[in-house]
């Protein structure tokens, strides 16, 4: 047994230097060349940082494209999902309440036009995206409040839609923060 403790400790020390010090430092060094310098890419409006491009934030006001419900209210230092099971009766009541709220804020929309992502919480609680359908269903409301034509808004959504990877893989997405920044820029 004793013959194994000394090499165990010495191996541990030398590997700690390689794996826990050298390896992350090299990556941090290379990351300085990446967008955001490895600190996370930010979005700025008039020189002021309004958020991180990848980290979703809460948009609940009617004049903005609303982001998805979040189990942690978009707390970006405490990510989390709802972890509600599909059959949980309380959970289904919450979803029903979200549907009702959405219908009140968006008169003229039929239930069947609401994509499920708008009434369900994301896994991270920080989902930065919506599908194009989930933004379009909000266009009528925003057009009315802001006095912008629906054509202009739909065009904006198109502009900010990111298609599937090389046109083949994955869903189309719209980054809600960037879309809303662009929305504010329309006068």
């Amino acid at each position, binding site marked *: 047994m004793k013959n*194994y403790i000394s*090499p*165990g*400790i*010495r*191996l*541990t020390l*030398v*590997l700690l230097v390689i*794996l*826990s010090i050298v*390896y992350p430092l090299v*990556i*941090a060094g*290379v*990351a300085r060349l*990446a967008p955001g310098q490895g600190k*996370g890419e*930010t979005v700025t409006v008039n020189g002021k940082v*309004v*958020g*991180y491009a990848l*980290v979703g*934030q809460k*948009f609940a006001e009617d004049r*903005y494209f609303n982001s998805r419900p979040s189990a942690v209210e*978009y707390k*970006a*230092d*405490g*990510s*989390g*999902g*709802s*972890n509600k*099971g*599909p*059959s*949980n*009766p309380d*959970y289904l009541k919450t*979803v029903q309440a979200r*549907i009702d709220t959405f219908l009140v804020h968006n008169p003229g929309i039929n*239930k*069947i*036009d609401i*994509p*499920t992502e*708008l009434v369900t*919480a*994301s*896994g*991270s609680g*920080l*989902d930065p*995206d919506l599908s194009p359908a989930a933004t379009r269903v909000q266009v009528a409301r925003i057009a009315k409040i802001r006095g912008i034509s629906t054509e202009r808004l739909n065009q904006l959504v198109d502009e900010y839609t990111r298609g599937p*990877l090389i046109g083949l*893989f*994955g*869903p189309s997405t719209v980054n809600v923060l960037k879309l809303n920044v662009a929305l504010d820029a329309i006068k």
Partner: protein
Amino acid sequence: MYGLTVLLAIPLGKYIANVFKPESANGPLERFIYRVGGIDPTREMSWKKNLTALLTINAVWLAFSFTLLLLQGGLPLNPDGNPSMTPDLAFNTAISFMVNCDLQHYSGESGLTYLTQLGGITFLMFVSAATGIASLLLIVRSFLPKVVDTVGNFYVFFVKAITRILLPLSFVVALILVFNGTPASFDGKDSVVTMQGDTVNVSRGPAAGMIAIKHIGTNGGGWFGVNSAHPLENPNYFTNMVEMVAQVLLPIAMLFALGFLINRRRFTWVVYGVMTLGMLCLLIPTLVTEVHGNPAIAQLGVSQPTGAMEGKEVRFGPLASAYWSIVTTIISTGSVNSMHDSSMALSGTMELLGMMTNAFYGGCGVGFLNYYYYLIIAVFISGLMVGRTPELFGRKVEAREIKIASIVALLSTFLVKGGTALAVWFFVKYPDAAWAVKPSAWLNNPGNHGFSEILYEFTSANANNGSGFEGLGDNNFFWNYATGIVLILGRFIPIIGPVAIAGLLAQKKYVPESSGTLPIDTGTFGLMTFAVILIITALSFFPALALGPLAEYFSLK
């Protein structure tokens, strides 16, 4: 995506085989590590000595990381001012990462410091994956046609697994992540005022390197609380593909490497076929049920154009999330890109089954060790059925080997169901026990789904998987210690068992294969093994599944 993985895995397997051939030379980095470590790389050891070396160094890591976690609050590299861990949580966390499981009863943003993320977690991720790879190599020699007392040198296998395989691969993955937006700097939280005027703090840190090894080494523990569902941990569909490929790559490549090392490619293709068949059996129902959406939500009248979205991210969608949930449970990674607690009931069943078999590809190196004991049982049963001597690669499988294999197989049932029973007993009898989370507050969901949360936690601990039905209130005395013990047994018994069997077999006389030998590289024998896996799993776990996710499935119809 899957095809790409296999295409990469074959040449990688060849490369790995070359790295571990006895005549393969050591580079300057390895020679430096051996010198500092005081290791003689030419020394050959018996299986018992190798196991002692393996267990001793693991004990060193456990003591070291436990201490680090207990003291992290007062140590440097803690820009967010996070507290030290309680002893029960530190016990659970240190074990969990040492055994390559990565069950997490804390959230990375608030539960760890950059020092422990790198010096504790990242370090353990590398060395536990390398331990798994080295364990597999310890059984290789019993497959070769000569009688041997020594099975190689654990330290050499271990060091080379890090320097030649894990470190280079992780580096590549980390760079891909960094250029897609994953943070890698040492800055702490950033405070931002959002467009609506809310103030939020955004957690960051040197995460990219850790996220890379978390997948390459099939570890699975997240930098952030929600793991690869977090937009900084898995920024887009492309990184999602990369992380997915990264976690399946080594388990499949190790299988091919084994084939090259023992020169039995046909045998590895049969094993590969069985494992792939197993994966498809779990994958297809999951994809169908997730894309179909939640029937209870459908009744509320909204549309589910792509499928169920609770606990899922828009940038991945239900299809890629469902695929990931199966891959991560059969491979013993346990990282998640959607919340399994919110998966459809049928998907939950499949995720549980993936961990219960734990041999469809399985973890880095240890996946084949799990398959190996099914193999021993299959050889024995088919030998009896056709009246031939049960043999594996020219060596007789006798009572002692079968006993070890059966004990390993039965142990997992015992740990999972025993643990679940104990938890349920506390839940019912002592709902107000004075733990950090009272038993009555453990469950996040009522009824059958609540039972599934308990079952999932113990299954995940035993399989060293690490994913969870995270609604479970698991950071307290009971869960930290109970799963900690299951973790250690669920890791080392399935390593010790197969290594012991292989060590015993290697000492037996080699009988050349003849017409009297049961051929084990045929499709028939592959199906036989599959049947053995199916029957053992069904007998062991069907009743528990029936009480949990299956009951929920039928109630949702």
